[in-house]
């Protein structure tokens, strides 16, 4: 009896875990999934990609010649070994700024957000 109850609980737990995994992996209910792109190494720097896409949509209005490949190349060069935090700080210190929806931002942040927005469709 005891063994049977344990089996049921175990199966239920496994099922719940599988369901949660499926929800996480195959739907956007828990985590938003984005289709793979050639720029995922760059986009992986974003902690909140949904917010970056919102910002990026505004940024693209001021970037008429924007191309994802060029932006990604520029960002890879800017990130170097330091990543986004260092690149954004250096941009601010050096005055490499751009506007997105009126916001004065480090150029790397604007490019990264614009890239996220463009590849999000």
């Amino acid at each position, binding site marked *: 009896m005891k063994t049977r109850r344990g089996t049921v609980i175990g199966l239920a737990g496994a099922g719940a875990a599988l369901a949660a995994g499926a929800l996480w992996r195959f739907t956007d209910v828990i985590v938003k999934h984005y289709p793979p792109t050639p720029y995922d190494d760059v986009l992986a720097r974003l902690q*909140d990609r949904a917010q970056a896409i*919102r*910002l990026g949509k505004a940024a693209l209005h001021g970037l008429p010649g924007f191309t994802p490949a060029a932006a990604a190349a520029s960002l890879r060069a800017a990130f170097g070994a330091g990543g986004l935090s260092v690149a954004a700080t250096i941009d*601010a210190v050096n005055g490499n700024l751009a506007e997105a929806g*009126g*916001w004065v931002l480090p150029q790397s942040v604007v490019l990264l957000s614009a890239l996220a927005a463009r590849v999000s469709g």
Partner: protein
Amino acid sequence: MSALIDARTLPAGTVLTPDIAVIGGGPAGISLALALADSRLDVVLLESGGLRFDPKIQNMYRGDQEGVSYVALDGGRLRYLGGSTNHWGGWCRPLDGIDFEARDWFAHSGWPFALSEIQPYFARAQALCEAGPWLYDDADGAATDQGRALPLARGGVYTSWFQFSKTRGDVLPTHFGTRYEQDLRRAAHVSPYVHANVTALALAPDAGRIDRLEARTLSGNRFTVRPHIVVLAAGAMENARLLLASNDVMAAGVGNQNDLVGRFFADHPIPRNTATLVLFDGQLPAIYGGANVTLANGAILRAALSPRPEFMRKHGVAGSLTTIEDPAALDETGTAAVITAAEALGVDARNAKAFSLGCGLELTPDPERRLTLTGERDALGLPRLKLAMRVADADFANYRLTLVELGRQLLAAKTGMLRLNLKSRQEWLAGMDWGNHHLGTTRMSADPKSGVVDADSKVHGIANLYVAGSSVFPTYGSSNPTLNLVALTLRLADHLKKVAA
């Protein structure tokens, strides 16, 4: 103690013969009369109004205007004892050294002397404005218990300071008429007249000096003043008006031989909500807030943000004073910008708060921003004024450069970030207010071809006519003018004592 003399009670045909006649009882006229009180010079102070607002007297200020929307000509100034200090906000700040320089990127700029020329008079001017101990840009250390200045990365913008005038107790700020009426009465050699309207500066036939002043009251009285020296201290609009209207000997008006009187009018535009400031930690130091900070020593302070002289030179921008105003809400894009930027910079923005920014701007001197006479006349027969108001797009563009630099310094210090809210000319003008700081219509220059008065505030070509007040400012700075015009007037008083001696 003498009384204020009501000109309506003077016997017909009265002729006054003082050493000095001061036209206008605002901050310049009152400061000048009081500064001359310790001399043996007989001074007559001629104030058009009485001791309180009278719509019939105020009506003489009405005029026409064209161009950029501006305050009605009878709306931004007051015509009774104390002048426009009867409605000023009490904001005080000395001009900066760069304000006096001829700036090669700023047409028609430059005073005929440096800031050091009026610095000796600031302490007395500060006392007359009752603005407390002199702190200004040394206030950062004095106000530490009220919060430190916002951390900004090294750069072109710094925290600057206003101080505020006060009278007694909680009455704020100093109304020069109310505050100094008794001092004027007590001054042995000063005769203050009210309801005394000067209607003409009558030149001698050789046009080299003022022979007499023709004066009238609204009740119909007429009298004459024959002073040795005349000082026009009626504000930038009325100074120009009286010079232009006194055209019986010089057809273009007194002192207007080079067509400069009334030109270069200026004010400080105060566009609202120019930018949105976000502080990542949400903590706005009280020193920047709308409620001014009062120190134990009586100084009333408010911090602002100004461009450094070296930034102004490098980027060709004008003066400005940016103030932090009200809490603001962020839209969806703004929220996204704050979250994304903060994450990128590695700062915690969970408590971030937004605030709107305001500012006072310095305008580029413009000869076509000018006052002229119209065919319409006031109750005493003086032609009314027409103002052609202009603001150059470059003035807005320049200020945006200062805001971008402030945004950069906020980001680099990981303190916060900035949104530029205004782009088109229409957007700038839609939220535009004005300081009611009338400036520049009798500008100062050593060269008669580029100024109405010389470095001593004497009208070029007229031996005994001087001008006091902010109408002589050839370049304006962004600081509020009252403290500065009082200091400049005290300097004029010293000069007049020497001349009269």
